[in-house]
């Protein structure tokens, strides 16, 4: 089989290009069709997903988009929709909480997602190289994601408690002063990020593990014959081949990081002050607690737009990185 290192830069995000840049088979496109029953199977395999998405995702999204141009009030048990044009979007600019939330969310996204990807990858890499205790290590490293979000928030709140928390007790043993992890401006956001990394690294770990274990071994054998060191192996074989998995994991972690809610709600409630106010929490307050349906819809649209921009930026950055290779 082909042993040329596949040019994984062909795998981009979103699926802009199907082709692997390998020697192409005679058929041309990267497809395996060619039989007479193909049109049937094309539709049979695709339509369940299509149907589900059409029925359950289009309507809510369109509804949210339209709602952002209205104000909804209720009297006598009935709603009144008042069109307000782009007023809701204008108000976003002046929302104090939103500005704080934007900054915090970006910081959170970068460090939390970065941390999870890094640790997840390193741990997956290390786990692939051991035989003793493999199942144990893997199970342990995946454990945090099995714990429900509410429990993660509640338990870490106790662990980080100033008076009685385990963390302060432990650092007390080494001789440090107890720190107000969740209540001091300097450490609050970092603590929330830490809890998130603890909670979500298993997601990255699991996917990278599956990715690494799926890599064709013959490429590595060829590399060893050529005398590649560990770092060279990593840089020229593993990372390029893992790029699709890395990109998709990154994309989903980024999107989910923008939705982070449980941890902030339980650990700090957005405080102290606004130091842990994140976008999804502001959205929760405006959309649900304060019941501002139209304004909340516009905020949702804004957040979605923002994440799209970030993803596109990440995509083009990735293209630039892998292009010279």
């Amino acid at each position, binding site marked *: 089989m082909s042993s040329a290192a596949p040019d994984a830069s062909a795998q981009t995000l979103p699926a802009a290009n199907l082709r692997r840049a390998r020697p192409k088979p005679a058929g041309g496109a990267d497809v395996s069709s060619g039989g007479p029953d193909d049109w049937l199977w094309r539709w049979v395999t695709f339509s369940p997903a299509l149907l589900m998405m059409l029925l359950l995702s289009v309507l809510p999204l369109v509804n949210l988009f339209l709602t952002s141009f209205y104000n909804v009030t*209720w*009297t*006598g*048990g*009935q*709603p009144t929709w008042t069109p307000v044009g782009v007023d809701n979007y204008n108000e976003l600019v002046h929302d104090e909480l939103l500005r704080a939330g934007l900054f915090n969310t970006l910081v959170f996204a970068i460090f939390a997602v970065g941390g999870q990807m890094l640790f997840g990858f390193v741990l997956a890499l290390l786990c692939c190289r051991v035989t003793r205790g493999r199942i144990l290590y893997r199970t342990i490293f995946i454990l945090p994601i099995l714990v429900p979000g509410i429990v993660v928030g509640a338990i870490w709140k106790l662990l980080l*408690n*100033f*008076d*009685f928390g385990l963390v302060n007790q432990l650092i007390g043993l080494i001789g440090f002063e107890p720190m*107000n992890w*969740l*209540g*001091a*401006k300097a450490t609050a956001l970092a603590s929330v990020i830490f809890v998130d990394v603890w909670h979500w690294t298993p997601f990255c770990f699991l996917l990278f593990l599956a990715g690494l274990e799926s890599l064709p071994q013959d490429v590595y054998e060829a590399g060893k014959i050529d005398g590649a060191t560990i770092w060279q192996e990593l840089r020229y074989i593993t990372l390029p081949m893992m790029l699709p998995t890395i990109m998709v994991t990154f994309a989903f972690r980024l999107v989910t990081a923008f939705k982070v809610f449980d941890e902030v*709600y339980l650990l*700090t*409630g*957005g*405080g*102290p*002050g*606004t130091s842990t106010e994140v976008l999804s929490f502001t959205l929760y*307050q405006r959309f*649900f*607690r*304060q*019941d501002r349906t139209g304004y909340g819809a516009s905020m949702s649209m804004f957040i979605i737009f923002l994440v799209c921009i970030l993803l596109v930026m990440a995509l083009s950055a990735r293209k630039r990185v892998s292009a010279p290779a």
Partner: protein
Amino acid sequence: MRESSITGRVTRSGISRRRVLAGAGAAAIGALGNVRFAAAAKVAPITIVINQSPWFESFRKTVELYEKETGNKVELDVNPFAGSLEKQRNSVRAAKGQYDLLIMNGGWFAEMYFGGFVEAISDIDPSFKLDPDVYTLGDTVFFDPVKKVMTPQGKLMSVPIGPLIPLLYYRGDLYKEAGLKAPETFAELEANARKLHKPPGRYGIVQRGARGPATVSFDFYPYLYGNGGGIFKNQAAADYTVTLNNEAGRTALEYYLRLAKEVGHPQTASLDQADVIQNMLTGKAAHISAVIAAWSPMDDPDKSAVVDKVEFAPTPHAAGLTTASGLGHWLGGIARNIPDDRKRGAVEFLRWFQTKDAQIASAKLGGIPVNAAAYRDPISQERKFRWMKPLADSLPHAVNVYQFPEASEVIAILELGLNQAVAGNTAAAPALNSMADQIHGVMAKYGYATGKLPPL
């Protein structure tokens, strides 16, 4: 006695028989079933939506008692507190409601009234009268849909289910040791807190300072209103002039901040209600101000290190004024979008629930009664129910802080502003001015009659 209703005499004889049975024991009531209580009309089964809480168990047992006594069926849909509002909203906004009796929190009942989601009890059954001994809790059970205010001239919209207000919890054992008496004024509280302040093992007083859905602001209301201050000039007359930054407000906030700084917990700015209660349970606090519903874990050896040591008192006040706790209560309202027979069923439940006998039974089961007669009952003399007298003293003076649906925006402003003041980022006067300014902005945005005071 049950309020005289159309079913007059038959009702009374049923009750006297019930008194005898109550004396013989609750089991006897159950055994007799529903045969004797023909007076309570047989109605359609209803669904009550309520949240899980320390007082839920007692409510559930009270409902069971209702079912036994009347033979009417009640279904309880219990939800987590986080999400109760969404569930109730979804139900009342649908074409056909899922829930019949809504147990509404002080935080959202205004939204339900204003939105027309709750039907006035007097519209469903004009003969229904609120038992005169039931606390009206800042008149929040009434609503005038035209003038949009909550005064007794309005319609009766709901019946109180849980009269939850904060009380002062203090360490009776420490008081005895130091020869102190329960504080009535703010000055006394401060003096006592100083005497008992022995950090880091024990703090004079532990307050809430965290920013949350209704956290630091709730701790602050007794200080604000107890000093004669207030957020709005006169809600009952729909005058929403912002008075937060008057002299009384300044006195209150400066006092609050002084307590936190000098006799309080060093991390007050990050403490929420659960933390405050935790401090009391673990013996680290000499005083706290906490909702009365937290009385039960105090004497539970599995949860508390200060069993039998905690005493209760109304929250203190300025000399010459009265105690003024803020209401965080629960009201039972009937949804509009349900069939008529279920509405009547809900009315029947409320009619039973508000009676003295039902409320005393509820108290014995661990609940917090809404009927003053229950507080006059001998059980209020028992050690276990030592919180009843201070609560009964406080309830007539409880303040309903907000009577309009956009309150959550005002609360959000207070939460942020007070939190920053407690954290030491802003001084009292500028904090009050800034909050008053923002609140004024919000009220004006929604078209209420409002105004501002000159800055402090």
